[in-house]
């Protein structure tokens, strides 16, 4: 018999889970919110999502060629970035601006730092922040949903903006369903939570970050004397906590680190919302905590099995 035996290192079995499958799961989890955005903001929401996805994929494809890297556009991570960036934009955003944000996210933040897994901040959030700095008026052109003609829609204040001025314009029901001005993917809380539940059930994300992040915001705003429910249900908190703060590359890998990181995200979000000049602080809070991830991981490194932490409260003798 001709010997064609493959000799390789154990294990010789694999779970079958691939990067592409994980990204596909994230896209499935994002789809309820995508559908909701089209229902709430009309066809233009779909168009913005398409523009962002297409320009993210093109950026990924071309940069891999220019940088002479293995082609990674097939792993669908660029699609996820595109959808997430679109979710962070007002439905009225000019398409060319959305495309610039996408290029910044993929080329500058992701590919220039080594591609998938190597970006040190969330690409979609940096895309959004670049656009906020470059096109502030277009990025704040919020419209009230369910008006039909979006481009000419009535410009209005987001719930956080109106709350900062001491008014409360929306009911809890409206906030849950998403009938309020805001970024196109952030408003429908029910759809986002549905997606989050799917990710937890599929074990794509651990529930630690979303729960601790949202919990921290709830408790801190309550202590600060604000309405914690409004804080949780408005702005980009749920979108950020479920889909942005849980980004693998930019969140701690171990559970203890995830908890510390999520508390930090919550604290910064509340500080910016209450004391900052911006009404919303989720993007900046997550990006700042992204940068701190290596330090958090170093401080919370798990001990090998059988080793006791020196400060163990109850040590077996």
């Amino acid at each position: 018999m001709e010997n064609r035996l493959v000799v390789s290192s154990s294990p010789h079995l694999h779970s079958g889970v691939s990067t592409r499958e994980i990204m596909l799961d994230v896209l499935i989890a994002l789809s309820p919110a995508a559908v909701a955005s089209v229902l709430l903001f009309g066809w233009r929401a779909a168009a913005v999502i398409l523009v962002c996805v297409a320009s993210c994929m093109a950026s990924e494809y071309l940069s891999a060629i220019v940088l002479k890297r293995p082609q990674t556009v097939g792993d669908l991570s660029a699609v996820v970035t595109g959808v997430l960036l679109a979710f962070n934009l007002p439905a009225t955003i000019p398409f060319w601006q959305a495309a610039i944000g996408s290029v910044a996210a993929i080329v500058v933040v992701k590919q220039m730092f080594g591609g998938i897994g190597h970006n040190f901040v969330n690409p979609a959030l940096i895309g959004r922040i670049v656009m906020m700095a470059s096109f502030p008026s277009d990025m704040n052109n919020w419209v009230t949903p369910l008006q039909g003609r979006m481009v000419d829609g009535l410009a209005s204040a987001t719930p956080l903006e109106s709350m900062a001025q001491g008014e409360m314009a929306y009911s809890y029901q409206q906030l849950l369903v998403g009938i309020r001005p805001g970024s196109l993917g952030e408003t429908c809380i029910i759809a986002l939570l549905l997606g989050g539940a799917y990710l937890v059930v599929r074990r794509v994300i651990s529930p630690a970050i979303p729960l601790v992040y949202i919990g921290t915001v709830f408790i801190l705003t309550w202590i600060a004397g604000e309405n914690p429910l409004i804080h949780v249900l408005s702005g980009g908190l749920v979108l950020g906590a479920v889909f942005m703060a849980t980004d693998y590359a930019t969140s701690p890998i171990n559970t203890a680190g995830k908890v510390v990181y999520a508390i930090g995200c919550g604290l910064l979000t509340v500080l910016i919302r209450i004391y900052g000049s911006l009404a919303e602080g989720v993007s900046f809070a997550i990006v700042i905590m992204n940068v701190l991830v290596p330090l958090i991981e170093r401080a919370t490194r798990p001990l090998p099995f059988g080793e006791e932490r020196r400060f163990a409260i109850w040590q077996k003798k």
Partner: protein
Amino acid sequence: MLEGNGINIMSVLKRIFKSNAGVRAPHYKNTAESETLVMPPPERVIISMQQHIGAPCIPTVKVGDIVEVGQVVGDSDKPVSAPIHSGVSGKVAAITELVLPGGVKTSAVVIQTDGEQRVYQEIKPPAVENYQDFLKAVRSSGLVGLGGAGFPTHIKLNPPNPEAIDTLIINAAECEPYITADYRECIENTGDILDGIQAVMKYLNISKAIIGVERNKPAAISKLSKAAAEVSEPGREVAVKVLPSRYPQGAEKVLIYSCTGRMVPPGKLPSDVGCIVMNVTSVSFLAKYLRTGMPLVDKRLTVDGSAVKEPKNVRVIVGTPVHDVLEFCGGVKSEVRKLIMGGPMMGLAMMDDQLPVLKQNNAILAFAEEDVLPGGQSACIRCGRCVRACPMNLLPPSIEAALKIKDTEKMAKLGVMNCMECGCCSFSCPASRKLVQSMRLAKGELRKAQAAKKA
């Protein structure tokens, strides 16, 4: 000793947040109902002189010698070693060199069998009066850890602190996919298992024995529980512990933790937490040896895999070439592209089907093209699946990064030496990174650096 009567907060938290250490590997226990068939002696056997952890044996026979079943053909004067016996009667045809799976080079005794299977005249039940006799008998039986590691049993049963050992743990978890050899031992030789346990408990003066079995083997659990209840008596208690079916349940440290709640600290041995762990087939063999005096010359193997025509459990004489074993199982139905000695998670890929069966082998798996994992890997996406899966709480990606820059200090700090190469990290990696391979390389680098430091 070690009877913690308080609550350790860290370990409680660990249980809540990391109840999922290990992976849900598929079971594929296709041969569970296949009763063991005895394979007749092959034309010739190749007896490796390295069938255990420790010093290799030196052949004690020459070319042309006539040997019989149970006769010693290799032994060593080093403490950590175990004698090797012939399982056939016949004539020594050659003393050759062999490269075992994993790359170890060793000499081997090749015996041309005469088919008569004459038993060596000196085979008789050993006279055992006390602990020392018992250890001597265990050594001359040639017994090594039959779970796969091959650690000489007479060393294991002679811990530095025998008085501190209070628990004997019998490993019947058999968490590796495909393998059912230990399961068949539980079903077919229940009595021997209990006899062996009682012998070890008696000579080492151990008061409690726990047989750990995974939940997916209900028939073994009920049979063992019944037998254990019959022999249990105050001061010599034997219990069956049902374990979750989660790989690697049978890994020594994991098993001790599941059975007793004790954690073996890094770099320490089971005896440091008062335990001795023995494989179920090892302990059963021990009883047989004490009864008959026939040393370890054959072994039950699970033969399975997509390329095997008739997967089954076979009792094979140690030294039988793998090719002959596959032929006995009806041959192969498609080209074998991967041949594994042991289970698919920790087994070694073989480069040649003429290699012989070793004492500590428990499976031969032959896979067709479609079951060979593709090579190649993509970038780590830091999803943390490996970290969640690692039963030793290690951080494989950090160790991989330390290996890349050869930072041995960092590797040591990350505890790479705790890695037992169970394969959970590579199994669960969506980027198909060769993490186990990196762990092995990192351990090698660290050992090299530590040796250089000493010199």
